C-alpha cells in the first residue's frame, strides 16, 4: 500500500518535472527540473529493489553530469529570449514525431510476434551489486570495454576540438614574439604579453578537455 503511494507520487513527480524540462523558458529552471526527474527515477529504482542503481543514478547523473549542464548554461549565459526564438514549428513537429515513434517502438516491444515476450520478473540477484558486477565483468566484458573505449574516443575528440580553436592566440602571439625578437626596434611589452596569453589558453584547453 505504502509502496503504491510512493510510486504514484514519484512517478507523477518524474513526469511533471520532465515536462517542465522541455517547456520552461528559463534553461536554469529546466536543468533544475531535470535534477528532480532524475531523483524521482532513483526513488523508482529503489522501489524496484535496485538501490545500487539508484545510488549510481544520483551520484553520476544528478551529482556530476547535470552539474556540468548547469555549469555550461550559466557560463554561456543563455537568456530566456534566445531559447524562445529558437523554438520554431519545425522543432515542435520533430519533437512530436520523435516522441510518437518512441511510443510505437516501446509499444511494439510489449506485443508478442514483434520479438517481445512475456516479461519475466526481475531477478533480485541480477540487480544486486555482486550480480551486476558478475554480469558486467563476465558475460558482457567485451561490450563493457568497448563502451569504455567509446567514451575515451569522445574525450580525446573533445580535447582535440577544444585545443584546435584555442591555439589561434598563442601562434599569433609566438609569431609576434619572434617578429619582435627579430626586429629589436619594437618595445619589449609585445614580446612579453603574448607568451602569457599562450600559457593561459593552453591550460584552459587542458582543463576543458579533462572536464
Amino acid at each position, binding site marked *: 500500500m505504502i509502496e503504491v503511494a510512493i510510486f504514484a507520487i514519484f512517478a507523477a513527480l518524474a513526469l511533471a518535472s520532465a515536462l517542465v524540462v522541455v517547456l520552461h523558458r528559463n534553461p*536554469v*529552471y529546466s536543468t*533544475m527540473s531535470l*535534477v528532480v526527474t532524475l531523483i524521482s527515477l532513483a526513488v523508482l529504482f529503489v522501489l524496484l529493489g535496485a*538501490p*545500487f542503481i*539508484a*545510488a*549510481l543514478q*544520483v*551520484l553520476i547523473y*544528478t*551529482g*556530476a553530469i547535470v*552539474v*556540468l549542464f*548547469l*555549469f555550461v548554461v*550559466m*557560463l554561456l549565459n543563455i537568456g530566456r529570449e534566445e531559447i524562445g526564438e529558437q523554438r520554431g514549428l519545425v522543432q515542435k513537429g520533430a519533437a512530436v514525431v520523435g516522441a510518437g515513434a518512441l511510443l510505437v517502438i516501446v509499444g511494439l516491444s510489449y506485443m508478442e510476434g514483434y520479438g517481445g515476450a512475456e516479461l519475466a520478473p526481475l531477478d533480485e540477484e541480477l540487480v*544486486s*551489486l555482486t550480480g551486476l558486477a558478475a554480469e558486467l565483468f563476465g558475460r558482457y566484458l567485451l561490450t563493457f570495454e568497448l563502451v569504455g573505449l567509446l567514451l575515451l574516443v569522445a574525450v580525446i575528440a573533445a580535447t582535440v576540438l577544444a585545443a584546435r580553436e584555442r591555439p589561434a592566440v598563442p601562434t599569433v602571439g609566438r609569431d609576434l614574439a619572434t617578429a619582435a625578437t627579430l626586429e629589436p626596434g619594437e618595445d619589449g611589452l609585445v614580446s612579453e604579453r603574448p607568451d602569457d596569453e599562450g600559457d593561459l589558453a593552453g*591550460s584552459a584547453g587542458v*582543463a576543458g578537455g*579533462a*572536464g
Partner: protein
Amino acid sequence: MLFDLGATAVKLGIFLGILLGAIAPVMVWVERRGSALIQDRPGPNRLGPWGLLQPAADALKFFFKEDVTPSLADRPLYLAAPVLAVLPALTTFVFIPFGPTVEVAGRAVPLVVSDASAGVLLFLAIASLGVYSLVIAGYASNNKYSLIGGLRASAQLISYELAMTLAVVAVLIPVGSFRLTEVVAYQRELWTPFGMWNVVPQLVGFFIFMVAAFAETNRLPFDLPEAESELIAGFHTEYSAMRFAAFFMSEYIAMTTLSALAATLFFGGWSFFGLVEGAARTVAGWFGPFWLWMGLFGLGTLLLKTVCFLGLFVWVRWTFPRFRYDQLMRLGWKVLLPLALANVIVVAAATLAGWL
C-alpha cells in the same frame, strides 16, 4: 514495525540533536577562538566563561537581522538555495554507524539509522547534491561575484568528487561491501586480535580523501567559491540573516558528516581496539542494560574521533594560504586523480595477494 519505527526515530533524534544543538554552535566557538589562538589574539571572550555564550549571541543576531532579497534576484531559486544547502548536509549522517547490532528487549537493533546495502555510495550521492545550493545561490543572486563563485563551486566539486570516490572505493575493495557497518567490522578483525585501523594500509587513500574533503566542503585552502579577497563572499554575497546562517550551518554540518565518514572509513569508526565493547560490558555488569552503554560509548568514541578531524579542519583553515584556481584544477586532475587510480590498483592487487 512500530518498535522499529520508534527506534529509528530515537536514533534520528539523537543525531539531529547532536548536529544542530551541539556541533554547529560549538564549532562556531571553536572556529572563532581557534583562529584567535593561532593568530595570537584573544578572540571573543566577553560573553560567558571563555566567550562560550558567543554562539548564542551570534544566533540571536542572525534571527533579528533584516532579511534582504535583491530586487533583481530570481526569487524562487534565491529562496530555495539555502534549503538545498541544509537538506543534503542533514541527511548523510544516517549511514554512519555508532555501534554494533545490539539486543533491545529481545529484538535486534542495529546502532545505525540506515544500513542500506549501497550505504557509502548513497552517502556520496546525497553529499554531491549539496553543490546545487552553491550554483543556484550564485545564479539567483544576479550578482557577478556570486555567479563566479557558483561557477567555481561547480567545477571544483566535480573535480574533487572523482578523487574522493576513488579513495573510498580503495577502502571498500578488501571489505567487499558498501555497508559502513561492514567497513567497521572489517577493521576490527584486520591483522591483530584487536583489529587495525584502515589508515595504516591505506595511508595514501586517506590523504587523497582528506584533501578532497577540504575541497568538497569549500574550506581553506580550497575556499575559491567564496574567496573573500577577490569575490567579497562568493556565492552567498547577497544573503543575509537566517538564510546566510543556513549556508554557514550547512558548511559545518557537511564538515562534521565528512569527518565522521573519514573516522569510519580510516580510523575504526565507533570501535577502539575492542576497548569500547569491554567498557560497555564492564559498566553493564554494575548497572543498566548493555545496549544503552554500548550505544553511549560507541557514540562517544565516534564523536571524539569526529571532533579531532573538525579540529584539523579549523587548524588547516587558519594555517594555509588559498590556492590559485589553476593550481586547484591541476592538483585535482593531474595529481590526485592519477594517484587515486594507482591507489585503487595497488589495493586491488594487495587484496588479491591476501595481504588485506
